């Protein structure tokens, strides 16, 4: 049942409005001042607020201002007996949904409220739908409704309960670590640690020390013994990112561990036996590296027991709208700014772009857009220049020179608001030529 909050200092007004609205089937709560109302709207969900303009403690406009400041999503109708253009304009400027002068015709308020409730119900349905969608198409922190990602989800579910080593392949930014974390979370090891180590960022000796740990005095600077990531991950999962970048020597050590399930710290003599699941990831073609002699074949087969290939974003564009929605919600909450919609034009730019940086690049683009946006909707101009630029550069690849020329002339004409002299100057042609081209391409000015 839709819930309405009435704020009026006069008891008879509250009573009268309450009775009237209850007869229409609404649930009504009436309070006598703005302070009580503001307390209530933060605790409960109301579909509409009816606020009297003239009240002694806090007037209707102040209540409205506070509702907006608190970011409470409730349409406010200002009610007054003293109608002036100024107050009406002020109310609408402050963000009132409507302004109504009492007494009003019995049908008037009913129509306004029904309209609001219908709109609110639609909004609620949208939110529900969005939630349902994300629940259905979200697996841990990974989002994807297309067949590519659904296959990944299925594989994660299949391999998670086993002890097998998993190799995750995917371009940079596709979410390899998220997949690794999902496997860990779905596995019986979920209570154990998940330890991640990026092999690309460390030189050989440091990587070995990070991986296997070291004893005191193992090398210069080893003042105390240190546990390696393998030991830290005992009982859990060790995620080795960019595994293609490890040196041939470390590959041998890793292979030995995978075979024996035991290792020794650098400078140590004690053999340490641990139970850890290895998930490796790479953005390179390991098989090619094997053929080139840069990656050990035996290690490749040890790691490649089960392979999960994450498709690049350009091959699963159907997931872009869901991902955009997810990131809009994420950054709106993180930044504390409500930007929860995207214009069709902006969405079409995102759909056109080929996303070399994959989901990570999309995530960054949406964060940028949320920061830049002035309203609650992302418009094309709020997207990063790289995306707008690349989108424009890419388009001509599918177009003829003639199409490109036409589009460019149209763009310049738009920019100079149809001024032929200025446009001709920018285009580097004389006005007569420009007129000829306008006619030839049937360009509307």
């Amino acid at each position: 049942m839709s819930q309405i909050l009435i704020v009026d200092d006069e008891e008879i007004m509250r009573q009268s409005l309450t009775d009237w609205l209850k007869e229409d089937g609404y649930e009504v709560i009436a309070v006598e001042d703005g302070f009580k109302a503001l307390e209530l709207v933060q605790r409960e969900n109301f579909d509409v607020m009816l606020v009297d303009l003239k009240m002694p403690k806090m007037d209707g406009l102040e209540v409205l201002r506070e509702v907006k400041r608190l970011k409470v999503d409730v349409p406010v109708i200002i009610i007054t007996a003293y109608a002036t253009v100024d107050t009406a304009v002020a109310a609408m400027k402050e963000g009132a949904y409507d302004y109504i002068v009492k007494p009003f015709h019995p049908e008037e308020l009913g129509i306004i409220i029904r309209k609001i409730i219908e709109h609110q119900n639609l909004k609620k349905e949208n939110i529900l739908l969005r939630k349902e969608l994300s629940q259905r198409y979200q697996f841990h922190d990974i989002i994807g409704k297309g067949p590519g990602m659904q296959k990944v989800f299925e594989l994660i579910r299949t391999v998670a309960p086993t002890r097998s080593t998993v190799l995750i392949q995917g371009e940079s930014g596709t979410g390899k670590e998220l997949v690794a974390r999902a496997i860990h979370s779905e596995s019986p090891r979920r209570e154990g640690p998940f330890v991640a180590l990026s092999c690309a960022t460390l030189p050989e000796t440091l990587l070995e020390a990070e991986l296997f740990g070291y004893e005191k005095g193992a090398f210069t600077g080893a003042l105390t013994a240190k546990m390696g990531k393998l030991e830290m991950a005992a009982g859990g999962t060790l995620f080795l990112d960019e595994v293609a970048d490890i040196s041939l020597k470390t590959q041998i050590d890793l292979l030995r561990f995978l075979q024996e399930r035991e290792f020794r710290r650098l400078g140590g003599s004690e053999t340490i036996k641990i139970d850890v699941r290895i998930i490796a990831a790479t953005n390179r073609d390991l098989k090619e590296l094997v053929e080139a002699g840069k990656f050990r074949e035996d290690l490749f087969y040890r790691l490649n027991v089960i392979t999960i290939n994450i498709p690049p974003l350009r091959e699963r564009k159907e997931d872009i709208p869901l991902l955009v929605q997810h990131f809009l919600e994420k950054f709106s909450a993180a930044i504390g700014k409500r930007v929860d919609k995207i214009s069709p034009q902006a969405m079409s730019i995102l759909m056109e772009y080929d996303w070399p940086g994959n989901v990570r690049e999309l995530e960054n683009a949406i964060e940028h857009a949320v920061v830049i946006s002035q309203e609650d909707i992302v418009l094309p101009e709020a997207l990063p220049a790289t995306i707008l630029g690349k989108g424009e550069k890419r388009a001509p690849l599918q177009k003829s020179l003639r199409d490109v020329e036409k589009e460019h002339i149209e763009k310049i004409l738009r920019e100079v608001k149809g001024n032929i002299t200025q446009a001709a100057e920018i285009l580097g042609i004389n006005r007569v030529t420009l007129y000829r081209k306008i006619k030839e391409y049937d360009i509307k000015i």
Partner: protein
Amino acid sequence: MMNRAIYILPIGKIREEIIEGVKSELVKVFPFPIKILSEIPNPAYAFDATRGQYHSTKILREVANYLPPDGLKILGITDVDLCTPVLTFVFGEAQLGGKACVISLTRLRQEYYALPRKDTLLLNRVVKEAIHELGHTLGLVHCSLRECVMAFAPDVLGIDQKLPQFCSSCRKVLNKMIEIFKGENEMADLG
């Protein structure tokens, strides 16, 4: 078993055929005895001089005071033009799920709209409004079916489109409410 009654309270001078006409129709709709109380004076206390109308909520409160101990609901019928502080006029007002309701004949008359007097049409409208407001006292809210007596009517045309009866879904709710009230009657008898 004592069955509690619905009382009709004439407020000011109301023609007998109206009161009797309403009674005979209410008997067909509600399974409670319908009784008529003595007329009370016009509600001068509720007059709003600036609007030239009478405040229905104030009248409603007064009407509730006239409900006899054996009464279940009370319907006040007045011939003054009713309004509320927020509405330009009302045909009637009720306490939702409460004891009292009130209706006005003023805007139900054809003469109010400068049309020739039609007594049958007036009675039809009064009956529909009486059932509608009593329906509210029995807990019913407005119905979206235009023909149902519980439909909201912003004008007399809306009232004329309605039938003097409940649609099936309102009837279902009403029957449940009637069962509850009958149960309360039995409890009162036992007490």
